[in-house]
């Protein structure tokens, strides 16, 4: 089998705005993406009482510090247990070594409550059993510190999938409860979460819990009467792990933009048996504000051609928002991975004219970008400046993971993120 294939004959994806199938392009080749270790960069802020210890090589250490090292840390929140030649040659017992390193770390940082052992490509290739190690270390350090493991390796995970694996690793630790509850899953900015919880409270759904929590020890309960609503599209493993604990998945589009947020809230309300007529009045004021804020940027975005390169799996919901609410024309929507179950409600809203691509052959994709000459390219930082130098406007995609973009109050901010590079080009004259 050729490893780098020509694109398969375009298979059809159900969906498409006019009930027409969408074109799906599947590609293999060089992928210009982050590995899952990068998730540490935001997870360490979400749960400040957790520490992320990568078990890997100097490359892994270098990646994480290159991403996060521009911030200056008085107290580090992540580190790497770097494998040496002795570990590879089997001269040192990996488990003894790991125990020693963890002791050393906990001595320095006694306030750590949850320690994540994060698997990497090297640790996966040499088959280090981190799950076992986490169990052993938990037994030793409980009740003070809980140790869990997940993989953020590049061979298994792309960028945001690291968060998916981290949350899935927490699922077995969640307490059991038969109570009716709503669980919001996926990292969102604190402020955004508060807004959405307030909206749910107005609908009579109080006591909404979140995964990940703000403190790693404050884990939400789960059981057969728990309904899970995903805040992020990249949580395939977590969603399935929660379903395995009996929780019911509420299918909905993602809360990006006014329409996405409305559909997302209504899906949850419906799952709890609330009539749409009862929900509507509570949303109207915020919805109006959202529309007003988005309208401000519509002039700049309307009719502009958009090309999204794969990065975080946020691409499809973003494309839906930018097309529907900002009037942008979609040329290609690239995603590193397409989970049809989790993306069903989004795909059916995309226009039939858009090409969806899954995977990447970066040089060929760049040829398509150059041929299409889009008005705006959404891409990673490895490509942004080079494309700008070729005269194309870019929006670097990582920012979308680090910004408050969900919900009504952020709809305008989200549109502004895409309008900003265009506005900047108009301002600059040299």
């Amino acid at each position: 089998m050729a490893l780098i294939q020509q694109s398969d004959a375009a298979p059809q994806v159900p969906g498409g705005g006019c009930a027409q199938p969408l074109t799906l392009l599947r590609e293999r080749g060089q992928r210009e993406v982050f590995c899952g270790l990068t998730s540490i960069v935001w997870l360490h802020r979400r749960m400040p009482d957790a520490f992320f210890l990568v078990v890997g090589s100097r490359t892994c250490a270098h990646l994480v510090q290159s991403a996060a090292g521009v911030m200056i840390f008085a107290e580090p929140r992540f580190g790497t247990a770097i494998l040496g030649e002795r570990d590879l040659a089997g001269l040192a017992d990996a488990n003894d070594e790991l125990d020693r390193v963890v002791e050393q770390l906990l001595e320095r940082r006694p306030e750590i409550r949850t320690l994540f052992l994060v698997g990497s490509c090297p640790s996966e290739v040499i088959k280090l059993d981190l799950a076992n190690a986490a169990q052993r270390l938990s037994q030793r350090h409980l009740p003070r510190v809980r140790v869990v493991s997940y993989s953020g390796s590049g061979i298994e995970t792309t960028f945001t999938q690291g968060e998916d694996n981290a949350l899935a690793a927490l699922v077995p630790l969640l307490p059991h409860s038969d109570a009716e509850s709503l669980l919001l899953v996926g990292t969102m900015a604190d402020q955004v979460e508060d807004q959405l919880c307030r909206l749910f409270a107005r609908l009579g759904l109080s006591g909404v819990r979140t995964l990940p929590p703000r403190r790693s020890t404050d884990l939400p309960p789960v059981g057969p009467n728990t309904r899970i609503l995903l805040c992020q599209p990249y949580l395939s493993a977590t969603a399935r792990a929660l379903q395995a604990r009996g929780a019911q998945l509420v299918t909905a589009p993602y809360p990006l933009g006014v329409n996405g947020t409305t559909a997302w809230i209504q899906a949850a309300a419906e799952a709890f048996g609330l009539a749409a007529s009862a929900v509507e009045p509570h949303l109207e004021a915020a919805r109006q504000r959202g529309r007003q804020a988005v309208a401000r940027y519509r002039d700049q975005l309307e009719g502009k051609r958009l090309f999204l390169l794969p990065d975080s799996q946020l691409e499809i919901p973003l494309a839906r928002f930018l097309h529907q609410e900002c009037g942008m024309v979609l040329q290609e929507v690239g995603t590193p991975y397409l989970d049809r179950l989790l993306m069903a409600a989004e795909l059916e809203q995309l226009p039939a004219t858009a090409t969806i691509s899954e995977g990447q052959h970066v040089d060929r994709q760049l040829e398509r970008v150059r041929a299409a000459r889009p008005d705006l390219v959404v891409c990673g930082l490895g490509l942004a400046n080079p494309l700008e130098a070729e005269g194309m406007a870019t929006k670097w995609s990582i920012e979308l993971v680090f910004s408050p973009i969900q919900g009504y109050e952020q709809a305008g901010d989200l549109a502004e993120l895409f309008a900003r590079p265009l506005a900047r080009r108009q301002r600059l004259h040299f």
Partner: protein
Amino acid sequence: MDLTLWTYEGPPHVGAMRIATSMEGVHYVLHAPQGDTYADLLFTMIERRGKRPPVTYTTFQARDLGGDTAEMVKVSVRDAVERFQPQALLVGESCTAELIQDQPGALASGMGLPIPIVNLELPAYSKKENWGAAETFYQLVRRLLKDQVPPPGTARPARTPGVRPKVNLLGPSALGFRCRDDVTEVCRLLGEIGVQVSVVAPLGASPADLQRIPEADLNICLYPEVAKPVCDWLERQFAMPCAYTVPIGIGATRDFLEEVGAALGVDVTTALRPEVVGASDLWSPQLHGGSTERARSRLPWYSRSVDSTYLTGKRVFVFADGTHALAAARIATAELGFELVGLGTYSRESAKPVRAAARSYGLEALITDDYLAVEQAISEAAPELVLGTQMERHIAKRLSIPCAVISTPIHVQDVPARYGPQMGWEGANVIFDTWVHPLMMGLEEHLIGMFREDFEFVDGHQSHLHTGGSKPVDSSRPMDSQDPPEPAPAAAVSVSTASTDKTRRWSQEGLAELGKIPFFVRGKVRRNTEAFAQTQGIDLITVDTLYEAKAHYGR
């Protein structure tokens, strides 16, 4: 396993990438898992390059491991050569590929490609970035010059009299510390003594340029961490002399000129005339007029002037790569009058000279790549200034010590737009400003610590929302003004002195919501919301008011 909170160097293949990216016409095929392309960002973001690094990654995934990863290498090599048409190809593996042993270099060599192939063997679990860069540069130069090596014992032909002597500058590279401007500064220095620069490599060189290396009269090893193996090899194979003095600091720059002059038989007395810039010609615009003018450094006079007296005996800790640590130790002690209380390096290759230097200052050198050991040493030495790398910034923050960066590893703020060399006369100017600046800041902090009641120098990190203490200064109103503030026009920002009264008009919930806004925009949001509430006649500011204002103003 080693617990590593921060690593001073990347893996060796990043060193190889630095060589490939520095050069023109060289491509690098790297057998690596998906995700290792993060290294592109070092060049496109930290160095702000407008081109992708000339690196093709195989980016294998777990599903490929059961299949033929060796075939992926071949496809990538063929694809890269066809697409990018390089003049030379580097082939190597990253740490994970090293474990699956596909021998990518041997595979590529067997493909019958019409260009020189350099097979890189970089042991990722025992060596690091600078070693990888030095090894790659050495292997590439060796491969490209192997047909030119004269028979052993061949003497170098004497330089033709009357022809300007030529030198190569070896070592400057992508992601090096200030290499871009150091090269300009050293070319200017050499121009002043009538020496021509022939090849600068790897930075900006092509494979064809590397083949011209033996034509020069002298190699200058500017960055031993990258170029020493190449310089040694050229000395052995081509009998090319090499100058090893690194011109960072006034004294070192003078030594450098003397060494180059002696090696080339060039008279450098004019360039070395011990006049320093004094008060009289300090403001002469001709001072830095380019290579034809006599450039001189302002550091000596700045360091002698009385406001520098307080620098005397300040305790300084130096930790860097070997080259920059040695240079900094000399400048700190002999040229700025600091007291050295710690000296160390993460470059094991430089352990010997750094140990010798430390002994001359009555210190024991710290040779380690363990961040925690450095942190402990700094903590024990209790310096007033740390001269180090990006990693020492973390330590300095934790210990609240002023800090300046003198060496890699660096981040984006140390690749400045302005001309910022470390070498030569202008480099010394840059160094004076950079090292003294945090001390000034430190002094201010000191005063804040002593006098806490100041109306202006309040703790900037303390949000006045949480403490209810200090109020921001309204610079538009003198302190003793008895005039009432002018009424603000509608939709203008509120007068900040009135904000304490307005605080009472925020609901608890609204105020808490405001606290969640990032601090750098919080002030603006607050002013906007209050102005909005005023125009709307709203007495109590709630969460909804905040968002209505946000929608009204757009941000």
